[in-house]
């Protein structure tokens, strides 16, 4: 229940934010159907909304999508699926489905599979329905600032990053990257200040 509600809220926020940032309702819904990875979707609309190029948007979203590949590596030996089923499994390999599956690890591989599929498919359905609702809502709004939508997007990003700030090292990195992006915004073309922080992360990650 709480997972559905949270996914619904994210979905509405995404649909509304996508339209507010210049995407059409169709494009917003296609992103949710085909990309189906919250952080990547928010990133691509955020970068284009801030005036960044398509390439910057795609690059930022894709860097965020790398973690789904690692989830796939964890899940593949447990799911053991092939052909079309593997295509579906890949599409619903996201934070939530992998997280729930790993939470069931002590109960055995059958429970893991069940957790993965139920969560993955459930989130997929909710996420897409609520994206459409949010996109239609934003279309009807007019001035999005009067509804606080301009603040809903950064709040959504903050909600995504907050649980990852598990230690002082992570917090310092987060604040450092935020400050770096702000300082670079007037200097670099839109989108690049954001992508550049990924290289900061790679650098400190490899050195540590």
């Amino acid at each position, binding site marked *: 229940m709480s997972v559905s509600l*949270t996914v619904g*809220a994210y979905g509405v926020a995404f649909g509304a934010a996508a339209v507010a940032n210049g995407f*059409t309702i169709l494009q917003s819904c*296609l992103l949710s159907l085909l*990309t189906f990875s919250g*952080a990547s*979707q928010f990133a*691509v609309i955020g970068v284009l909304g801030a005036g960044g190029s*398509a390439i910057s*948007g*795609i690059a*930022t*979203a*894709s*860097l*965020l*999508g*790398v973690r*789904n*590949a*690692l*989830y*796939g*590596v964890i*899940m*593949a*030996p447990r799911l053991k699926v092939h052909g079309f089923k593997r*295509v579906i499994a*890949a*599409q619903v*390999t996201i934070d939530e489905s992998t997280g729930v599956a790993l939470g069931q690890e002590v109960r055995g591989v059958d429970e893991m599979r069940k957790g993965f599929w139920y969560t993955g498919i459930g989130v997929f359905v909710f996420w897409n329905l609520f994206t459409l609702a949010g996109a239609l809502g934003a279309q009807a709004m007019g001035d999005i*600032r*009067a509804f*606080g939508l*301009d*603040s*809903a997007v*950064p*709040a959504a*990003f*903050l909600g*995504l*990053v*907050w649980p*990852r*700030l598990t230690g002082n090292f992570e917090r310092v*990195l987060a604040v450092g*990257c*935020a400050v770096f992006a*702000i300082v670079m*915004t007037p200097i670099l073309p*839109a989108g690049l200040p*954001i992508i550049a922080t*990924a290289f*900061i*992360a*790679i650098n*400190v990650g*490899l050195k*540590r």
Partner: protein
Amino acid sequence: MTPFWIATIGTSVIAFALKYSGHSVPEKWLSHPKIQRVNALIPIALLSALVAVQSFSEKSKLMIDQRLVGLTVAIITLLLKAPFPVVVLSAALSSAAVYNWL
């Protein structure tokens, strides 16, 4: 094709390719501790940068407006361990209030 279409299709294709490749490559390729480490840090960097840029800029200009109030409220609700819908809604309502009435 508009940049919005290129971004929509490009993001979707790469997102699926990444997901599918994870299910198809040998496990040892991606299970190196350094890759795991970097992978945990990249979202922190990108999402923090996005929070900052979306809160304090418009097109390449820096500015402070009602979004600062929304961001502050979001931080407070997160510190109070509020669930995600409450965080986003509180940020939106406070920001809208400032925009409409101040």
